[in-house]
């Protein structure tokens, strides 16, 4: 126990300032009203869905939860079920074998809800494109509010996209 406390004291707090929202990341007009976003903006529950990525974007979603970004300081937390979620964080491309599962996850998420598409593949289908096995971009399967490019996008960029999705209510 002493070692643990000593290490915690030695390292201190490494969390860095969070990024500003960027409206350029929006792919559709804002659908939710200020009152809803204001509530989401203070306590946002996120369900991550990997719809067919190379797992590179997942590495950065893990890194988003590192002490450097620490999204919980902003009331943002990841939850275990879409039924508990306000926002789906979806990586792509959407494989055809995941198409039904992604739709069902979206349907299981209670309204009102937001969707953020992650990475070049989530935004456009990326290097995998559309094929017999791939539906391409996330918005080909479910409605998307904000999309963040990058291969993979950094934790800061992902956090920025999430904050953009709820930004109107934060003002």
């Amino acid at each position: 126990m002493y070692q643990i406390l000593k290490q915690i004291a030695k390292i201190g707090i490494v969390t860095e300032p969070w990024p500003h929202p960027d409206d350029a990341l929006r792919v559709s007009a804002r659908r939710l009203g200020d009152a809803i976003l204001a509530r989401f903006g203070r306590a946002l529950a996120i369900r991550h869905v990997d719809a067919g990525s190379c797992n590179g974007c997942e590495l950065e979603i893990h890194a988003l939860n590192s002490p450097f970004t620490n999204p919980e300081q902003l009331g943002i937390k990841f939850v275990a079920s879409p039924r508990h979620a306000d926002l789906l964080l979806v990586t792509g491309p959407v494989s055809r074998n995941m198409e039904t599962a992604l739709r069902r996850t979206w349907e299981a998420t209670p309204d009102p809800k937001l969707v953020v598409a992650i990475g070049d593949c989530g935004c456009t289908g990326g290097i995998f494109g559309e094929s017999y096995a791939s539906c391409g971009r996330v918005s080909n399967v479910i409605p998307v509010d904000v999309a963040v490019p990058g291969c993979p996008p950094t934790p800061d960029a992902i956090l920025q996209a999430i904050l953009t999705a709820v930004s109107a209510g934060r003002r």
Partner: protein
Amino acid sequence: MNLKELPIEVEPLPGAMPVFRASVAAAELREVCVQARARKARLVALWGTDDSERGTGYALHLALAFPSGLLWLRVPLARADPRYPGIADIYPAANRMQRACADLVGIRPEDGADARKWLRHGAWPEDAYPLRRDFDTSLRHGQKPDRYPFVAVAGEGVHEIPVGPVHAGTIEPGHFRFSIVGEKILRLEERLGYKHKGIEKRFESMTLEEGAKLAGRVSGDSTVAYAWAYAMAVEGATGIEPPRRALALRGILLELERIANHLGDLGYLGNDVALSFGFSQFWRLKEELLRFNARLFGHRYLMDAIVPGGVARDLPRADAEGLVRALEGMRREVETLQSIYEEHAGAQDRFIMTGQVLPELAERLGLNGFAGRASGVRRDLRVDYPVPPYQQLDPRMISHTRGDVAARVLVRFEEVFESMRLIEALVQELPPGETRLPLAKAGSGAKGIGWVEGWRGEVLIALEAGGNRIHRLHPHDPSWQNWPLLEHAVHGNIVPDFPLINKSFNLSYSGVDL
């Protein structure tokens, strides 16, 4: 010439690793496999090709690793009846590979084999084979329900828990079917293939230059291992030898990838036994390493840093020395954390004897990579086939025999330290000179093999090319071999320990779903 271990006529394949090619008739396949198995050869990969453009039928391909090198075996099959005698009883790891091959190429083992589909769910019909040359890529088939025939377990008090494809944590999609009594797991059956996005078909429309980017995205967490294997295959097929400085830099990149993944896993393994302190500490270290990667090589995960012909970016002396200093500081931190993990009774209680895979089973089923080395399977390409840049470094084989979560934790710690040592040695001996050669064209029907010990295990790329185009490429992830062992590792454990056991293997879904 003959292979050292088998009386079989082989032809050496030019390239960085010792690779031999041979062709055998389907009728001889089983005998060759029986003999290979008796001579301690392991099955690395199995895949199929449609050779109709060359005027022949189909072919089954096997990669078998002998002590003297890799044997790339081609088994020609008739166009009219592309069947072969299955080998899953000799090499159990072949089961899913044979089924994937049937789904994608339409070549099947003869009666008696497991004939269930694997990568095909409901997105394309049973009589359409995406990797055949006449497959219409513009066609979109409607979704049909998967209806996969899981093995049912019956008995008093037995019930099933279906999990996935969408899981509770930030992990890749796959389905796990648990049959349990109370909390105890009687049986686990995996259903993968959810991430199948047509990678092999996509390669066939690419040039040798373009393919590098896709190879680095077969399994993003192993991007360096795949990019190196791809570059090695292309260099073999086009007859170029990358500069020595580039090879040393590739070694540094591969070890950085190993350290980053092991640090992340060590954090999560702490997290999964309620030691969230471990998560915060290791992910702080990992993040620092990722930022170093971005500064030195332009990408946090080192994507596209290795290219056919060499590396995309040189490492100046001052940066290399900075890296060694940073790793030295990191090594001290990891030592502190290791002593905390080892003295933490709660963590050790969850780690020890959980998810055990004994050496005999690991050897029989072909467990590979660090998980294999935690179960007494002493294999590591860097040690077994020491080619540059590992030749002069004398890499240490990390090995333990207990095969439980604790052993897989310990192997990770020791491999982190060994990789740090290797990077330091590579930096000290960094050869001067060029870092990249221009890409040459491949001859007609040229072949190449890339074979690299990634952080998770051995990554193989088998390439057939012509001119500057990819004709056929099969990427093989070590997770093919290791996924079935997870089904064994959970026997008799309790359901709440599954996430811990799963994380202790940390297998790739994307790498096997293709």
